[in-house]
């Protein structure tokens, strides 16, 4: 084919540079590059993004971004779908990673992936092209519409339906279990209740509002998504932010990671019924949120990241105070984690529960701590280093067993690494302006931004039109892939294992539903 176009994280490029392939070579190229067997010339790439964009002439273009994790670059190419024939040959039968992307494209642009084994709506909304939907009545009926859930028939097989309103204080989603006695044969997860239409709104609202919207994609990943959005705008306007702003963003991102990882350990203790560490972890989580509040005025870091830099400084006195508080938190974390991870009753509950194998994690494209707990060494901070992480590295932690224990342990390990990173960087925050001016966005450009949020790889991609306005904004939260991991983890497990499995993933409904 000879046409190769590579981009790096945080880069922007003229949209016309992206090669356009015909349908069969587009498909073949994805399959070849993502093939794992070296015999078939497989490069072991990962399908990082696959999304559609409406072209002027009522045709649609589908873009693929294949990540070469070892080389830190992504191959970008596209194909055109003419309006007369809104369909293409599905990749999913050969490449499971494409499964959610194809359903999303079908829903957003009414283009049918022919041969998709499980074609059902993702978020239940009408398409962006104002043509008839792939599923009639998709937006006029409540979820799940006319879709029949997957069913297991047979003597003593039974079904458990949970949600959308759950028992605890959590977001809405529907879980349908097919069980035989206590054993879960299949779990089907149906989300979409949280769909707020963020991607579409991003194209319509002012930049001042867009950053607030980016902060509200997932309320526990404010910094992660705001950073990804800011990187996009900075990249599209050739704005270079100062090392000081980079450092402050990285500090906030690690504080966000710490608060969530430690909160998750607390939630796991609660679900096991081991209440002392649940209380202590819960309190310790608050210490990190309070550091973020000290820095940004909000416990979740809202208003910190803005295109061009950050709104708040972290001066010498504050850095000193943060260091002291982090040293105290490090000691607490060690004591409480010892209490948790050394109890045989805790280990017997977590060990071997809800296993996701390395192969399964690879096939379905899992990302973040979930993938690392299955032995997959993926981390945007290392593979596609951005911002401060280009200069200061955080070692990747991986665990091999892929069970709930591994996903708990990885949180403890990563928390330790984050604290060390923070202690180090707070010692010497580089100089520079807090916020640079951003210029108008470059017309007809595409930008890509990847951030390792606490749940994993956050990917934002944006395309501008000829007037330099955002014409397409694509958001991928790590939960988009990882919900599939939860379904696989509970397969064959006991129904009573579901709560600990769910907590060990702790995925975002809002981030998935957008």
């Amino acid at each position, binding site marked *: 084919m000879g046409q190769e176009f590579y981009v790096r994280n945080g880069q922007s490029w003229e949209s016309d540079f992206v090669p356009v392939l015909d349908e069969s070579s587009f498909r073949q190229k994805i399959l070849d590059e993502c093939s794992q067997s070296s015999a078939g010339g497989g490069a072991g790439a990962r399908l990082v993004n696959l999304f559609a964009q409406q072209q002027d002439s009522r045709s649609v273009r589908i873009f693929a971004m294949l990540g070469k994790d070892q080389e830190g670059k992504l191959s970008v190419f596209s194909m055109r779908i003419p309006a007369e024939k809104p369909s293409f040959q599905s990749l999913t039968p050969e490449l499971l990673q494409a499964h959610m992307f194809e359903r999303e494209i079908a829903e957003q642009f009414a283009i049918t992936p022919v041969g998709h084994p499980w074609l059902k709506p993702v978020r239940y909304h009408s398409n962006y092209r104002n043509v008839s939907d792939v599923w009639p009545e998709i937006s006029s009926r409540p979820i799940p519409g006319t879709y029949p859930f997957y069913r297991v028939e047979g003597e003593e097989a039974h079904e458990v339906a949970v949600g959308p309103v759950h028992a605890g*204080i959590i*977001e809405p989603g529907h879980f349908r279990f097919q069980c035989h006695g206590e054993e879960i044969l299949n779990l089907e997860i149906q989300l979409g209740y949280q769909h707020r239409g963020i991607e579409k709104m991003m194209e319509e609202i002012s930049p001042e509002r867009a950053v*607030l919207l980016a902060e*509200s994609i997932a309320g526990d990943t404010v910094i992660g998504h705001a950073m990804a959005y800011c990187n996009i705008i900075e990249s599209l306007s050739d704005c270079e932010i100062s090392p000081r702003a980079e450092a402050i963003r990285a500090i906030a991102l690690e504080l966000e990671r710490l608060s969530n990882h430690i909160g998750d350990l607390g939630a796991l203790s609660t679900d096991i019924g081991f209440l002392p560490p649940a209380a202590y972890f819960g*309190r310790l989580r608050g210490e990190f949120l309070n550091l973020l509040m000290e820095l*940004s005025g*909000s416990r*979740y870091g809202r208003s910190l990241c803005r295109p061009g830099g950050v709104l708040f400084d972290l001066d010498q006195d504050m850095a000193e105070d943060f260091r002291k508080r982090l040293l105290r938190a490090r000691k607490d974390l060690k004591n409480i984690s010892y209490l948790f991870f050394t109890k045989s009753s805790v280990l017997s509950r977590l060990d071997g529960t809800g296993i996701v194998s390395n192969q399964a994690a690879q096939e379905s494209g899992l990302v973040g701590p979930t993938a690392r707990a299955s032995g997959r060494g993926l981390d945007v901070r290392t593979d596609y280093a951005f911002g401060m992480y280009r200069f200061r590295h955080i070692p990747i932690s991986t665990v091999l067993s892929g069970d709930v224990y591994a996903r708990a342990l990885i949180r403890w390990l990563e928390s330790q690494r984050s604290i060390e990173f923070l202690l180090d960087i707070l010692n010497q925050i580089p100089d520079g302006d807090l916020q640079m001016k951003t210029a108008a966005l470059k017309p007809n450009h595409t930008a890509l931004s990847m951030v390792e949020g606490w749940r994993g790889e956050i990917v934002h991609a944006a395309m501008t039109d000829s007037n330099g306005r955002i014409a397409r904004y694509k958001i991928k939260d790590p939960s988009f892939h990882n919900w599939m991991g939860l379904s696989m983890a509970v397969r064959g497990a006991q129904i009573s294992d579901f709560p600990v499995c769910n907590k060990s993933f702790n995925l975002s409904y809002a981030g998935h539903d957008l």
Partner: protein
Amino acid sequence: MWGVIINRFRQGCRTLSYPKDVPAFPKRFRGKPVAHDAAGEKPAMDMGKCLFNEDMKDIYPKGALTYSRDHRMAVSKREDLILRDDEIRLAAALNEKMLKIFGRSLKLREVCAGSCGGCDAEIQAMGNVVFDLSRFGIQFVASPRHADGLMITGPVTKNMELALKKTYEAMPHPKIVIAVGACAISGGPFQGGREVHNGVDGLIPVDLYIPGCPPHPLTILDGLLRLLDKLER
């Protein structure tokens, strides 16, 4: 066993002495907005729409709006959220009959109807040892059938509308409804979006509005305690 005891000793008691003492908020904390005289008149400020973002200040004439460190913002009526001067009519207590029923034990059901999860995280945080919600007799329950009140977050997405209404209908009378966060009050950052409503108003009657994005746990707690007449007016 010893590990638990040693850690218990090390951790000590972390519960705030609130409401007796109110902890100091950090300097940058953005509490109740304050309008100042600029160009002769004070701007009217709708706390129900406010996302409490730092750059909000830039939209108003210079110096016309600042944030105080006052966390108390919950009100009983939607119009009370519109600040015209510095006075705020904080939430009123329930009437005597309702207080007799709920005053010492209030069970709440939470429904997230399209929030980003931020408000829900703060509601959940009220249950931790620092805020320790249950010492006030307030608890979250798993079923609407067991609930006296409904706490709603999020702008109410079209996909959640039915589930929210069904939850409300499933609760026994008398019942109260609490809207938490900018989204539930006005749609917040999603206001005007075609997949959402602009908050709970118009779908279900609301008894208590708690603004914020997300509101601090103490802001929510303040609203609940005012409702139950457990704070000085």
